[in-house]
């Protein structure tokens, strides 16, 4: 399935592995992220915790602000468009962002369809809650998948749920006979050839990252041990007491996720983490992870 265009898209996702991608809202934060060792930044006007607090329609960020960030850092710059809003994606590609996140954090523009991402030269990352959703996005052309978690919550529980769901289904598929795959694909709502790929390789055809709720170095280590290949951290850094120190600590814990002594040292003296929300405090209709189809 790797034609040259797709190889180049997935290639950038491969380069981001084992790292931390940080949400930033201006050039100054982008510099803090780069200086902390981020592998990429996600440029957006409001971080998810503020989108949640402010309410209203959340849209693609102002291109001027994204360009300022692109001019400030040498690492890749990502930006978000609304689910199904291919015109916002066209704008982001025209500006020259390195990765587009078709994201449930923004208000969806289409309640039925996602963007046909094969039409673009810029690679896309999309969120998922389970394997079927991941494979549908890959079939549409996503070059990277991130489990959704619950953005802006500071609560890791949804991220864990989604990562475990994907990994469990991958293991389940590997136990199936070839003649059971068609029925399984039908129930997953995913293309047969991608289900066959998962059975043969025991993994997704593109890198699988984690997002939504990471607030501490131990959260980062947990997601890596559960199978994430990189961590997206949104509100967790710039909603904490000391963003620069916390950013560095999460980078270190992501590299040394399997070394508890190192994660312990990274966790010392960081000041307060973001407060965080119980999932029961977020009404079902306000949960961002329920967006996407």
């Amino acid at each position: 399935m790797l034609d040259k265009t797709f190889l180049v898209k997935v290639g950038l996702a491969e380069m981001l592995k084992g790292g931390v991608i940080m949400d930033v809202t201006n050039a100054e934060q982008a510099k803090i992220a780069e200086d902390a060792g981020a592998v990429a930044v996600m440029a957006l006007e409001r971080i998810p915790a503020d989108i949640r607090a402010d309410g209203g329609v959340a849209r693609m960020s102002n291109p001027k602000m994204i360009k300022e960030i692109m001019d400030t850092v040498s690492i890749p710059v990502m930006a978000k468009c609304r689910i199904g809003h291919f015109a916002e994606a066209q704008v982001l590609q025209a500006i020259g962002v390195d990765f587009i996140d078709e994201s449930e954090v923004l208000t969806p523009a289409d309640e039925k369809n996602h963007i046909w991402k094969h039409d673009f030269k810029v690679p896309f990352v999309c969120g998922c809650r389970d394997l079927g959703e991941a494979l549908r996005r890959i079939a549409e052309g996503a070059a990277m998948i991130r489990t959704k978690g619950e953005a802006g919550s500071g609560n890791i529980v949804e991220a864990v749920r989604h990562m475990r769901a994907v990994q469990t289904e991958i293991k389940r598929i590997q136990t199936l006979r070839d003649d059971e795959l068609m029925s399984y694909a039908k129930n997953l709502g995913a293309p047969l050839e991608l289900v066959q790929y998962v059975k043969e390789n025991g993994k997704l055809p593109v890198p699988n990252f984690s997002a939504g709720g990471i607030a501490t170095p131990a959260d980062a280590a947990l997601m890596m041990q559960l199978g994430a290949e990189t961590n997206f951290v949104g509100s967790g850094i710039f909603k904490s007491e000391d963003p620069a120190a916390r950013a560095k600590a999460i980078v270190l814990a992501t590299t040394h996720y399997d070394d508890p002594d190192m994660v312990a040292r990274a966790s010392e003296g960081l000041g307060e983490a973001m407060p965080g929300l119980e999932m029961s405090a977020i009404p079902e209709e306000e949960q961002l992870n329920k967006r996407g189809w």
Partner: protein
Amino acid sequence: MAKIGILALQGDFYRHSLAVRRLEHEAVLVKDEAALKKCDKLIIPGGESTTFLHLMEKLNLRQPLLEFGREKAIMGTCAGLITLSKSAGHLPFPPLGLIDITVERNAYGRQVDSFVDTIRLNVNGTERPYEGVFIRAPKIAALGSDVRPLAWHKDDVVMAASENILVATFHPELTDDLRIHAYFIEQVG
């Protein structure tokens, strides 16, 4: 069977480990000095060079890597090339300077300018085609007198070596063609 270390602070170290194993050598993921000391050769993978340099300082790996590179062979691809170079722009710390090349980072542009194209590889006296995968790739702006060019894309040198350091601006680990890994393991250093 040689022990080939792959610096695993960040980046596509897993892809390099697959290439090493396909050539029937042992791949060792290196995150600290103890693991580095066990290796016969080292690969610094693609990834983000700024992240590599931050983590090398934080984890006190600069001195051990310099000592390793003075005695043993190292291959660097893309960000690995930047890390091994003498100078490259906009880095938080100086690169290791183990090979006398000057590098221009992201020289082709941003991700929309990334590409796959046939390059001319000449490691054993004859030019052969090779599919080069260039991702936000750097360019080698200048080579020192002890550095030999080994591959070209159009007029640009995209792979070069000194006595024991091999560098490429592209990603041999993203293709199934093992010639460059085999050359490094069998013939460099």
